[in-house]
C-alpha cells in the first residue's frame, strides 16, 4: 500500500490568477491615469492620484462584479475605499519622517553636541553654536519628571489593580480625564501654582512638574494594563504561602510585571519628550548651559526647535529642522525600546 502525502489546502490563499488580475488592475489604472494627466486638463500629482484612485476602484469593482455578480458591488467599493483611507493615513506619516530626515540631516555636525548657543545667535549659520544646553535641559526635564511621575503612576495603578478600593472606578475615570488635559493648561497651572507662589522659580524643575502632569496618566494606564496581565494564580500562591499583601505585591506581582513597568515608564517619557507648549510658561529658555535644575532659566530640545521656528529666518529654520531630527531620533529610540521590552514574555 502506498502512502499518499496529502498536501495542505489553503483555499483562502490568492491563486496566481487572482494575483495577476490585481496587478493588472493596478498597472492599467496607473497607465490610464498617466495618460489622463498627459492628455487632458488634469494636472499634477493630485490629479494623478485622484484619477488613479477612481479608475482603480472602478476596475476592481468591475472585476469583482464579473466574478461574483452584483452582490460584490458594495463589497468591492467598500474594500477599495478602506484601502485608500488606510493609505492616505500613512502618506503624511512617511512624508513627515522623510522631511525631518532630509531637512534635518543638512544641519548635522559634530560641534552641535559640544557647544551651546551662548556665543552664537539663532540667526548665525548652523555650524556656529550647538544644542548641548538643550540636550542637557531635556535630560534634566525627563529625569525629574520621571522621579515624580513614575512612583505616582505605578502606585495609582497598584491602587486600581491590587487594592481595588471603593473609589477605584472613580479614580479610573479621573485618570482618563487627566490624560486629556491639554499640555498648555498643564504649563499654565504650574505657572500659577508654583512659579507665582512658591520660592521655586522658572527652572528645569518647574518644567518637569508640568511635564509630570502629562506623564502620570500614561504611566498609570500602561502599568495598569501590565499589572492586570499578571496571572491571578501568582497572587493567590503568595497569599497561600502566608505572605502579607504587601509582601505579595512587592516580591511577586511587581517583579513579574517588571518589564511592563519599564515599558510604561519609557512610553511616559516618549509622551513628554516632545512637548513644547508647557515649556513656554515654565522653563524660560536659556541659551547657555545651566547645570542647576532648580535655579535659572533652562532650555530643552523642543524649546530650541520652537525658538528656531518662531524666528523664521532660513538659518534658524535649519536649526529647527536639525533639532527636530534629533528629538525624533530620541523619541524613536524610546519607542523601539518600549516595543522590544513590551514584546518580551512576562516575568523573564
Amino acid at each position: 500500500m502506498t502512502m499518499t502525502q496529502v498536501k495542505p489546502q489553503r483555499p483562502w490563499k490568492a491563486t496566481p490568477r487572482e494575483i495577476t488580475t490585481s496587478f493588472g488592475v493596478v498597472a492599467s489604472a496607473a497607465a490610464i491615469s498617466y495618460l489622463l494627466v498627459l492628455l487632458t486638463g488634469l494636472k499634477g500629482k493630485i490629479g494623478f492620484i485622484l484619477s488613479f484612485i477612481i479608475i482603480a476602484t472602478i476596475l476592481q469593482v468591475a472585476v469583482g462584479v464579473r466574478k461574483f455578480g452584483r452582490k460584490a458591488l458594495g463589497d468591492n467599493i467598500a474594500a477599495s475605499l478602506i484601502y485608500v483611507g488606510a493609505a492616505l493615513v500613512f502618506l503624511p506619516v512617511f512624508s513627515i519622517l522623510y522631511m525631518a530626515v532630509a531637512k534635518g540631516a543638512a544641519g548635522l555636525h559634530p560641534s552641535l553636541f559640544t557647544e551651546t548657543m551662548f556665543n552664537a545667535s539663532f540667526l548665525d549659520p548652523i555650524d556656529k553654536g550647538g544644542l548641548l544646553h538643550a540636550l542637557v535641559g531635556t535630560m534634566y526635564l525627563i529625569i525629574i519628571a520621571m522621579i515624580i511621575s513614575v512612583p505616582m503612576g505605578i502606585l495609582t495603578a497598584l491602587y486600581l489593580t491590587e487594592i481595588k478600593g471603593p473609589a477605584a472606578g472613580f479614580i479610573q475615570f479621573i485618570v482618563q480625564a487627566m490624560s486629556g488635559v491639554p499640555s498648555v493648561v498643564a504649563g499654565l497651572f504650574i505657572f500659577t501654582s508654583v512659579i507665582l507662589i512658591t520660592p521655586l522659580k522658572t527652572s528645569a524643575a518647574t518644567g518637569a512638574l508640568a511635564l509630570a502632569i502629562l506623564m502620570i496618566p500614561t504611566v498609570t494606564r500602561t502599568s495598569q494594563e501590565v499589572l492586570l496581565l499578571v496571572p491571578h494564580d501568582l497572587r493567590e500562591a503568595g497569599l497561600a504561602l502566608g505572605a502579607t499583601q504587601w509582601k505579595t505585591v512587592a516580591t511577586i506581582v511587581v517583579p513579574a510585571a517588571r518589564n511592563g513597568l519599564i515599558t510604561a515608564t519609557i512610553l511616559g517619557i516618549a509622551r513628554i519628550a516632545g512637548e513644547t507648549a508647557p515649556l513656554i510658561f515654565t522653563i524660560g529658555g536659556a541659551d547657555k548651559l545651566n547645570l542647576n535644575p532648580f535655579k535659572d532659566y533652562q532650555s530643552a530640545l523642543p524649546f530650541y526647535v520652537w525658538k528656531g521656528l518662531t524666528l523664521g529666518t532660513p538659518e534658524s529654520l535649519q536649526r529647527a529642522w536639525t533639532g527636530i531630527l534629533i528629538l525624533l531620533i530620541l523619541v524613536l529610540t524610546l519607542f523601539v525600546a518600549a516595543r522590544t521590552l513590551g514584546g518580551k514574555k512576562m516575568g523573564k
Partner: protein
Amino acid sequence: MYKIHPMTLLENKSAATPAPREITTKPRVSDKIFRGVVTSFGMSALVILTLIGGFLAVRGIQTFHSQGWSFLTSYKWDVTVDDAGVTTNHLGVGAMLIGTVLVSIVALVVGVPLSIAMALFLTFYAPARLKTILVSIVDLMAAFPSVLFGLWGFFVLMPMATYWAKLIFKYLSWIPIFNAPEPFFERSPFIAGLVLAIMIIPIVTSVSREVFAQTPLDRIQAAYALGATKWGMIKAVVFPFGSSGVVGGAMLGLGRAFGETVAVYTVLNIVFAPNWHVLFGSGGNIASLIILKWGEATGDETTALLAAGFILFVMTLVVNMFANFIVRQTLKSGK
C-alpha cells in the same frame, strides 16, 4: 512562621483540646501602611485635577469680575494705555472660541472617516504580519512631537493645501462655508484642521480598533454563515455594535483638537475677528491665543490668559469625560 516539633504534638494529645484559634482577616501593620500609602497615591490624580481646576478658576473669576460675560462673547483683545498711564482692557475670547470649534470640526470631518477606514483595515483586512507593523506606525504617530507637525504643516502641507483650497473655492464657493471674503487661502482654518486631523487619527484609530476587535465573534460568523460579504458583515454586525464606541473615540479626538497649541499656532493666521469661512486665512484657537499673547502680557492680561486656560480646561474635561463614558459603556457591552 511556626515550627511544630513532633514532641509537642504527642504531648498535646494527652492535654485538653486547645481553645479554637481566632480566624480574622485583620491586616498586619505592614499591610495597613502599604494600603494607606497606595490609596493616598491613588488619590493623587484626583488631587492634581482639582488643583488645576481650582488655581485656574480663581484667576478666571478675577477676569470675569473685570470683563463680565463679554470675556466669552467679545471678539476684541485690546490693551490700551492712555496718556495718563491708565490701562484699559477689552479682552474677549469669542473669536477664539469660534476658531477652536471651526478648526476642530474640520479635523473631525477629515480625520474620523480616515480613522474608521484605518481601524477597519487593521481589524478585518490587513494580514496579521502587516497588521503588527502598521499598528506600531500608528502608535508612533501619536508620539510625534507636536512642533514637528507644526513645521511639516507649515512647510510641506501648506503649499499643497493652499492649492486644494483654491480648487475647492473655485468649484464649491456657492456653499456658504467654502466661500471667502477675500481670495487669501494661506494659513486658514482648513489647513490647520488638516494638520489637526493627522494629529487626532492615532487616538481615534486606536479606540475604534479596540471597539471593533470586541465585536462578538459568533455574530461575525453568523453573518458570514448567512452568506454576507465582508462589507455586508461590517454593515450588519460591526457598525451597529461599535458605532457608539467610534463616537466616543471621535470625541476623545475632539478633546485633543481643542487643546492642541503649537501646531495650530504655527499653521494658523490668528486674527481677532469671527470667521466661519474655513478656506479664508483667518482664525484662532484658545490654546494658540495663550502662547501668542503670553510673551507680552502683563497684569490683567496675564490673568485673562489664565482664565482662557480655565475655559479650555473645562471644555476638554467635559468632552473627555463624556467620551470616556461612552467608550467604556461600549467596551462593557461586548463582554
